């Protein structure tokens, strides 16, 4: 039996939309408010949507009533309508304008530990003082910080220090799926992923993965369903330039800045694991759009777990991880269950009735 076309419900659909509108009871939220006040949500949507566009992410969050996966879906759908102008020049997080960089591996790091914008170190208790209208930020409150102007430094990567001391595996050392055979990095938006996936495809897929799904899988490794429990060599948040070749001069020029979070996890440490045959550490790597530290850390863990040649746990299985962390794919598949399955279910019903009537020695009940 083929699919049967049915019509109907257009009035109900229209009214269902109106009913959603009627539940939006408070005054409308302006897009700049969402961008400024829900910045971590905006960052999450940009990352999972795979498009760095803060204004549009804020708009998507408003349209989806705050459902971040649905907002990411809107962004992913919008991006599919845009032309791809080209690829950027290769950015390096070593050139980052740093807002935050911390290390859990070393107390003293060159340039120091910079906490930056973070509430990690304050109490996590509901603040009833903030009920009602939140206060305005005072743009001229700089003196509150005791801030003094000084030159903006660049920070040496902690991983470079480890490498300088011969404590890190050389790049590409024993990763048989590495990209050195490929001139161009894989692009999962152009070519479906195949397994075993090259490293560039793994990193790209992780970078647009859903935060919650990645957190869960990374956590499963920490709890023992996997062997990676990293020590964070460095976590940094900051701005990196988007550079292209100028169409007339052919030189590298910067278009603007993109905020990213980066995590380098040493795949060894507490309760831990893997010291390579050369008595060296290896690193797990995470890089995501915006400030999204739990995703960057989760990514570095999953980058580590997926290197195992014979996976024994979900977090170690490339196919399992990479096929299940995409929020848009997952949401689409799960939510499609709400759509009419009248015909497919009817055939299940027919089958179960047939089996039952055979058992009862009867024919059919209709």
């Amino acid at each position, binding site marked *: 039996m083929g699919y049967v076309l049915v019509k109907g419900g257009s009035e109900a659909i229209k009214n269902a939309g109106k009913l959603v509108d009627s539940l939006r009871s408070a005054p409308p939220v302006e897009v700049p408010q969402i961008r400024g006040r829900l910045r971590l949500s905006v960052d999450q949507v940009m990352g999972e949507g795979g498009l760095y566009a803060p204004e549009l992410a804020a708009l998507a969050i408003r349209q989806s009533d705050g459902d971040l996966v649905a907002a990411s879906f809107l962004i992913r759908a919008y991006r599919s309508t845009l032309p791809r102008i080209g690829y950027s*020049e290769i950015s390096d997080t070593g050139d980052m304008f740093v807002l935050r960089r911390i290390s859990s591996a070393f107390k003293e790091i060159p340039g120091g530990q*910079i906490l930056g914008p973070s509430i990690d170190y304050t109490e996590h208790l509901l603040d009833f003082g903030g009920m009602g209208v939140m206060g305005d930020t005072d743009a001229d409150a700089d003196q509150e910080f005791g801030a003094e102007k000084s030159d903006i430094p660049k920070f040496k990567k902690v991983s470079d220090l480890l490498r300088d001391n011969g404590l890190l595996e050389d790049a590409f050392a024993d990763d048989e799926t590495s990209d050195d055979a490929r001139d161009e990095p894989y692009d999962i938006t152009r070519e479906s992923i195949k397994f075993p996936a090259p490293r560039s495809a793994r990193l790209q897929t992780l970078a647009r993965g859903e935060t919650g799904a990645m957190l869960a899988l990374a956590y499963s490794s920490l709890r023992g369903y996997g062997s990676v429990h990293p020590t964070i060599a460095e976590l940094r948040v900051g701005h990196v330039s988007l550079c*292209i070749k100028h169409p007339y001069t052919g030189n590298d*020029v910067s278009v603007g800045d993109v905020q*990213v979070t980066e995590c380098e996890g040493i795949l060894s440490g507490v309760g831990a694991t893997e010291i390579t045959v050369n008595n060296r550490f290896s690193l797990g790597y995470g890089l995501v759009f915006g400030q999204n530290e739990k995703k960057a850390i989760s990514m570095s863990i999953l980058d580590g777990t997926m290197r195992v040649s014979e996976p024994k746990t979900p977090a170690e299985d490339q196919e399992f991880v990479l096929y299940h962390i995409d929020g848009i794919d997952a949401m689409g598949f799960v939510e499609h269950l709400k759509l009419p399955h009248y015909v497919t279910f009817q055939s299940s019903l027919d089958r179960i009735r047939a089996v039952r009537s055979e058992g009862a020695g009867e024919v059919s009940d209709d």
Partner: protein
Amino acid sequence: MNRDKRFELIARANSERICEIAERILADTATAVEVIKKPVGGMIMMRFRDTAEKCVFNLGEVMVTEAEVRIDSELGYAMIMGRDPETALAGAILDAAVESGHTLAPEIVDLLRSEEVRIKEELQKTWAKVATTKVDFEVMA
């Protein structure tokens, strides 16, 4: 100020200031601005080198708007981050205006230089605030 620097400053400058001066160029009847590429939104796939394995990969796309115009025989090009057709077109007009020696060229260059100072000061201000969050460890005796 060379063309590369001009491109970078137009991309980061205050869009109202860019648009204001572009409108004056458009209002000038002696100058014919021909639009070569209408301002369209598009994406640049941003590439990074991972610092663990030195592997180049595609992180994700960045929304940009680009435009291209011609004034006299000189082309002008601009790319702006985000979805902003007006500023992209205005930026391309400014780029072409400077290149073709428009009477407003000195004013455009002055504007970009003042924006350069403003952008640098803002960064320094941000950094100064960030620098106050540097940790001074005290070793317990």
